[in-house]
C-alpha cells in the first residue's frame, strides 16, 4: 500500500485531527486498515488499481469532514465535564435529562412521549394567552438562569445545541442568512464565564460573530444582526399607568392653566399652537425617553426604520424584535423605579 494519494489522505487526516498524539495514531491506523481492506476487496473484484484507490477514498468522504467529526467527538467528551448548570431547579434538571433521552431516539418510554411531542406544538400554542400553564417557566425566566460556560474552540452549532438543551429553550438558527453573510455555523467559540446569565452569554457569544438572538413566541431565533433589524413588527404597549401616575408635587400646577407654549415637543407639527394637555406632554416625553434610551439611531427621524406613536395611553411601536425587547425593558425599569406594578397584559404583540 504505497499510493501517494493514499498516504497524503492519511497525512492530511492526521494533521486535521487535533487530538493528542496517541489518539491520533490510533484513529489513523484504524482508518488505514479500513482503507486497505476496502482496496483489497475492490482489487479482488477486478477493479483496476487506480480506480480502486479513487473509489476507496471517495467512499471515505473528505478528510476535513471526518476529522471534524472526531475532533468534536473528543471535545464533547471534555465539554461534558466542563459545562455544568450552576443554578438549576428540579425542572431544569428534568429538561436536561429529557434532552439527553431524546438524543437516544425512539427512547426509553417508547411510543408514548413521541406522540405527545408530535401533538404538543399545534395544540398547546394557541391558547397561550389564557395563561393556562403557570408551571411552565416563560422564556424570560429561562434566559435569566445562570450557568457556567467553558467553551474551548467549540463550534457554534455545538454551543447552541448545548445551551438549548441546558436551558430547555428551543433555538432556531437561520442558517441561510448566516451563510449569505458569511458567518460559518461551526465558527469556533471560546468563552469562559462563571455563573453568567444565559441572556448575557448569548449576547456575548453571538455578538462576536455579528449574530443576535430574537425571542419569538416561546423559542429563540438566532440570525444576523442585519436580518433581525430588517424585520419590523408592530407592538402596542399599554402605558396608561405610567402616564397617569401622580407627578412631582411641583409639577401639579402646570396641569390647570397650561399656556399655549410648546416646551418639549421638538418637531411636533401642531401648527396653530394647540395647547398640549398634561397627558400629551407626558406621552411625548415618554416617547422621547424611549427614542433616546433605546437604539437612538434606529428610529425614523434618525434615518432608521422604527416608528412610535401614542393613542390614549397606548404606545404603538413598529420596530425590530430586538428593539422591542429593549423598549419593554426600559418600560419595566420605569415602572419599577416608579413603584408601579407590571401590567398583566402590558404588551400586545
Amino acid at each position, binding site marked *: 500500500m504505497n499510493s501517494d494519494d493514499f498516504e497524503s489522505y492519511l497525512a492530511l487526516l492526521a494533521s486535521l485531527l487535533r487530538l493528542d498524539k496517541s489518539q491520533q495514531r490510533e484513529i489513523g491506523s484504524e482508518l488505514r*486498515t479500513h482503507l486497505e481492506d476496502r482496496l483489497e476487496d475492490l482489487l479482488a473484484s477486478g477493479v483496476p488499481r487506480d480506480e480502486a484507490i479513487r473509489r476507496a477514498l471517495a467512499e471515505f468522504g473528505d478528510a476535513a469532514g471526518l476529522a471534524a467529526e472526531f475532533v468534536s467527538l473528543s471535545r464533547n467528551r471534555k465539554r461534558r465535564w466542563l459545562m455544568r448548570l450552576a443554578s438549576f431547579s428540579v425542572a431544569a434538571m428534568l429538561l436536561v435529562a429529557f434532552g439527553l433521552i431524546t438524543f437516544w431516539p425512539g427512547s426509553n418510554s417508547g*411510543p408514548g412521549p413521541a406522540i405527545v411531542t408530535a401533538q404538543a406544538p399545534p395544540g398547546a400554542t394557541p391558547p397561550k394567552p389564557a395563561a393556562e400553564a403557570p408551571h411552565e417557566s416563560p422564556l424570560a425566566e429561562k434566559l435569566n438562569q445562570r450557568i457556567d460556560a467553558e467553551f474551548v474552540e467549540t463550534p457554534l452549532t455545538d454551543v447552541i445545541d448545548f445551551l438549548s438543551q441546558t436551558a430547555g429553550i428551543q433555538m432556531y438558527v437561520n442558517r441561510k442568512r448566516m451563510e449569505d453573510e458569511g458567518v460559518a455555523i461551526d465558527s469556533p467559540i471560546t468563552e469562559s464565564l462563571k455563573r453568567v446569565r444565559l441572556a448575557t452569554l448569548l449576547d456575548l457569544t453571538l455578538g462576536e460573530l455579528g449574530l443576535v438572538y430574537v425571542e419569538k413566541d416561546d423559542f429563540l431565533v438566532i440570525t444576523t444582526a442585519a436580518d433581525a433589524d430588517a424585520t419590523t413588527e408592530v407592538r402596542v404597549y399599554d402605558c396608561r399607568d405610567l402616564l397617569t401616575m401622580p407627578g412631582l408635587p411641583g409639577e401639579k400646577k402646570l396641569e390647570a392653566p397650561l399656556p399655549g407654549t410648546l416646551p418639549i415637543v421638538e418637531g411636533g407639527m401642531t401648527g396653530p399652537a394647540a395647547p398640549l394637555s398634561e397627558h400629551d406632554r407626558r406621552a411625548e416625553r415618554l416617547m422621547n425617553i424611549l427614542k433616546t434610551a433605546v437604539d437612538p439611531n434606529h428610529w425614523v427621524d434618525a434615518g432608521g426604520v422604527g416608528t412610535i406613536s401614542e393613542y390614549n395611553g397606548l404606545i404603538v411601536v413598529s420596530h425590530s424584535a430586538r428593539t422591542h425587547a429593549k423598549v419593554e425593558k426600559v418600560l419595566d425599569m420605569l415602572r419599577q423605579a416608579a413603584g408601579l406594578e407590571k401590567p398583566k397584559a402590558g404588551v400586545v404583540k
Partner: protein
Amino acid sequence: MEEKSVTGKFGRDLLRGSLDLMVLSVLAGERKYGYLIQKEVRAASGGRVELPAGTLYPLLHRLEDERLIKASWDDATGRERKWYELTAAGRKRLAAQAQEWADYAQCIRQLLGAARVEPAT
C-alpha cells in the same frame, strides 16, 4: 451534515435514530472490526443501509466512550486491527432498544392501519 454521510434507501431522519441500534445489533455476535461492521450492516439490510466510514467510526468511538462497546487491538487476522465487542451495558441497551423499536414499529403500523394509509409501492 452532508447528504452523502448515510446513504441508502431510507430517509436520513429515519435512519439517524437507529444507527446506534444497527451497530450494536451487528456486534451482538462475535467481536468485529470497523470494516466488517460496515459490510454486515450492508448485507443484513439487503444493501439498503450504507454506513460510510465518516459516520461509522465516529459512531463507534462514541459508543466506546459511552462504555456500550469496548475495543482491543490485535493482529489475529495478520493485520493489526481494532476489534469491537459489546459490554454488559451494551447488551442491556441493545435488548432495551430492540424492544422499543419493536413497540414503536408496531405502534406506527397500527396508526397507519387505522388511518388506512397504504404504502406507495
